[in-house]
């Protein structure tokens, strides 16, 4: 009896001891080693899935789409879900075939056993569906798909330099894509989740989640209708003159809003990464050059504003030959006494130089800077250069006579358009604007870019006098710039190209330009046309013969697009004048 009782006690104690050991181990696992095993389990089953943000759209002033996204997939592999070498080979074969990849490269990637291997980005919907279906049919797993977006530009090469393009990481590399990248980009989200042994997500065990925040829509000031006009004219002109490059800018003078901006040569933005960098360069803001006679508006405005002269003051132009500091300055058409008005109309180099000499170097320099030369205009495009204005014209003793006629000074096209806008709007220098508004993905207005007045440069009275002279330029000198029924104000420029080594000028190589606005009495737009090195003989390569006709064609079409109404009386006068000239 006692033996049986001892046995029973022994069995009980053994059981208690055994269960205590098990319990102890369980407690040890649950409390002491909890963190370690929990991390191990998480590593095995929990995955962080990125949720890509959709990049914001870029639209024009009227809401036409300039840059959009198309849904694509990023194909990635979780090699830990592919059970054996046979399956690994099959997955590699199917994936490589469907995605048009090298099979051995895919296989070697899968053999690393890693849990997140990106196989291909920007895979279209059809291909990804086919791949998924084929893998599903053969019950293979380990290949997954992430939602992503591919950037598309529906207008190909239109406005290419302004819109810009992206790199492979979807970061802006040029144009608005770069300058507005922070707004367009958005924020990628993520989701922690668990997968079962077949690789399917277990929704029940979804963990922390942050939704993607899509990028904002950026609205530009550019009107695609006007952009189409200037690009067509630019292409036509470049086919005719075969220049090295050309630029047209259309600007609203009162607000500084850029209505259109085109550079030639252009490129297809959808294929930007295969284009030489020189072609993707926005010449309107990244190229500087000597402007030539279009710069004479600066010295004449300054002299009138400082009341050193008035528009009737006579300046002796030395009969077309003026010697200063042992160098001779010549006029294209020799003249005696010229009023300030006529200095502009006849584009007298000597007259301009004498005005600057009367003003003095320092004062002229101040006006040059006040018109915005020598500093970036502040347009929302990346990499804008400042041009070059030496202070006050440095050691070059001839600069005081050369800068007034647009030599020994370097400007950008946007600076020229901006400076003429100041004349057109009554004397205020406006900051050129290319972006007008930012909208959230649900269409709420986030920011509005109001016009920015940089400074007042000259008085309205001075601008009226300059405008009167610029009107006469198109009536008497650059008649090719006229537009039937409209009063045009503008100035031509013909500048010899500087040698690459900076020593002197190249023969028969010119940068010709026309900078004008219309209607002169109530300006609605400023149009700057620049043609770099047109393949023409020197005697035909002038601003008045090359750039002015381009301006005229552009301005006429722009006027129609903007519904500007021609003055029938003026039109009749122009026709009468034209027929009289033909008879003569």
């Amino acid at each position, binding site marked *: 009896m006692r033996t049986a009782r001892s046995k029973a006690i022994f069995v009980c104690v053994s059981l208690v001891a055994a269960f205590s050991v098990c319990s102890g181990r369980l407690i040890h696992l649950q409390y002491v080693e909890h963190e370690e095993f929990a991390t191990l389990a998480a590593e095995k089953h929990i995955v962080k899935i990125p949720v890509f943000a959709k990049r914001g759209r870029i639209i024009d002033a009227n809401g*036409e*789409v300039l840059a*959009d*996204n*198309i*849904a694509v997939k990023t194909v990635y592999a979780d090699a830990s879900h592919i059970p054996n070498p046979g399956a690994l080979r099959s997955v590699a074969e199917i994936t490589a075939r469907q995605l048009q990849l090298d099979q051995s490269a895919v296989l070697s990637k899968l053999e690393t056993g890693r849990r997140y291997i990106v196989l291909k980005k920007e895979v279209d*919907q059809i291909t990804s569906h086919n791949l998924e279906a084929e893998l599903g049919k053969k019950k293979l797993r380990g290949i997954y798909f992430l*939602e992503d977006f591919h950037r*598309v530009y*529906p*207008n*190909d090469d*239109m406005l290419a330099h302004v819109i810009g393009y992206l790199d492979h990481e979807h970061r802006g590399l040029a144009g608005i894509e770069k300058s507005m990248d922070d707004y367009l980009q958005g924020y990628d989200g993520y989701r922690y989740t668990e997968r079962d042994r077949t690789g*399917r*997500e*277990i*929704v*029940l065990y979804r963990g922390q989640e942050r939704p993607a925040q899509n990028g904002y829509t950026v609205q530009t000031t550019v009107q*695609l*209708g006007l952009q*189409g006009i200037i690009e067509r004219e630019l292409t036509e002109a470049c086919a005719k003159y075969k220049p090295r490059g050309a630029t047209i800018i259309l600007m609203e003078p009162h607000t500084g809003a850029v209505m259109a901006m085109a550079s030639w040569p252009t490129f297809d933005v959808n294929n930007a990464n295969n284009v030489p960098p020189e072609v993707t360069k926005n010449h309107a803001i990244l190229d500087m050059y000597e402007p030539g006679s279009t710069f004479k508006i600066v010295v004449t405005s300054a002299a009138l504003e400082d009341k050193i002269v008035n528009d009737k003051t006579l300046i002796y132009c030395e009969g077309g030959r003026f010697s200063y500091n042992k160098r001779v300055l010549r006029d294209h058409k020799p003249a005696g006494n010229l009023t300030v008005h006529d200095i502009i109309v006849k584009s007298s180099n000597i007259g301009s130089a004498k005005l600057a000499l009367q003003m003095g170097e320092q004062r002229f320099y101040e006006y040059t800077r006040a018109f915005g030369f020598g500093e970036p205009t502040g347009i929302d495009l990346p990499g804008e250069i400042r041009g070059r204005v030496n202070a006050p014209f440095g050691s070059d003793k001839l600069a005081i006579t050369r800068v007034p006629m647009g030599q020994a000074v370097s400007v950008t096209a946007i600076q020229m358009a901006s400076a003429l806008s100041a004349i057109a709007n009554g004397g205020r220098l406006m900051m050129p604007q290319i972006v007008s508004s930012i909208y959230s993905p649900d269409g709420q207005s986030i920011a509005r870019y109001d016009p920015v007045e940089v400074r007042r440069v000259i008085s309205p009275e001075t601008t009226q006098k300059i405008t009167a002279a610029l009107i006469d330029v198109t009536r008497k000198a650059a008649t090719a710039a006229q537009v*039937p*029924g409209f009063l045009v104000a503008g100035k031509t420029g013909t500048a010899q190209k500087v040698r690459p080594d900076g020593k002197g000028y190249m023969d028969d190589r010119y940068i010709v330009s026309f900078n004008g606005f219309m209607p002169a009495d109530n300006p609605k737009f400023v149009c700057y046309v620049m043609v770099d090195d047109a393949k023409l003989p020197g005697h035909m390569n002038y601003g008045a013969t090359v750039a002015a006709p381009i301006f005229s064609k552009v301005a*006429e079409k722009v*006027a*129609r697009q903007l*519904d500007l*109404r*021609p003055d029938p009386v003026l039109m009749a006068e122009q*026709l009468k004048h034209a027929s009289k000239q033909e008879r003569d």
Partner: protein
Amino acid sequence: MTRNRRKHENSVRVAAVIWWVLVFSGLGGLGLSYVYIKNQTIACGEERRKLERELRDFSDRSNTLQQQITAESSRLTLDRKLASGYIQMIEIDPIRIVRLDGSNPVVAEQNSAHEPPQIYARQ
């Protein structure tokens, strides 16, 4: 049966048995409910995953179609279609244009009905 005999008899305590049966049934039921609800949750999760995927597919298709519409109605495409003659533009008779800025020429043109409408084109 005498009182003494009844006292020493092993009686079945029905109430206690029922009590324990109920307790274990309850616990069992709770366990089964837990499993059932968990299964249901997993099934719902699966359903949700499928619906999310379906929704994403619809969204992708919508996005693709939207993009196609954008491409087809882009200015470049329309210009090309216009150049090829696939579409044509018809000039709007100025008499049919109403300008909201008060500069409407309609009245003048209606008064001179026999005069041809003014077209703002370069001659």
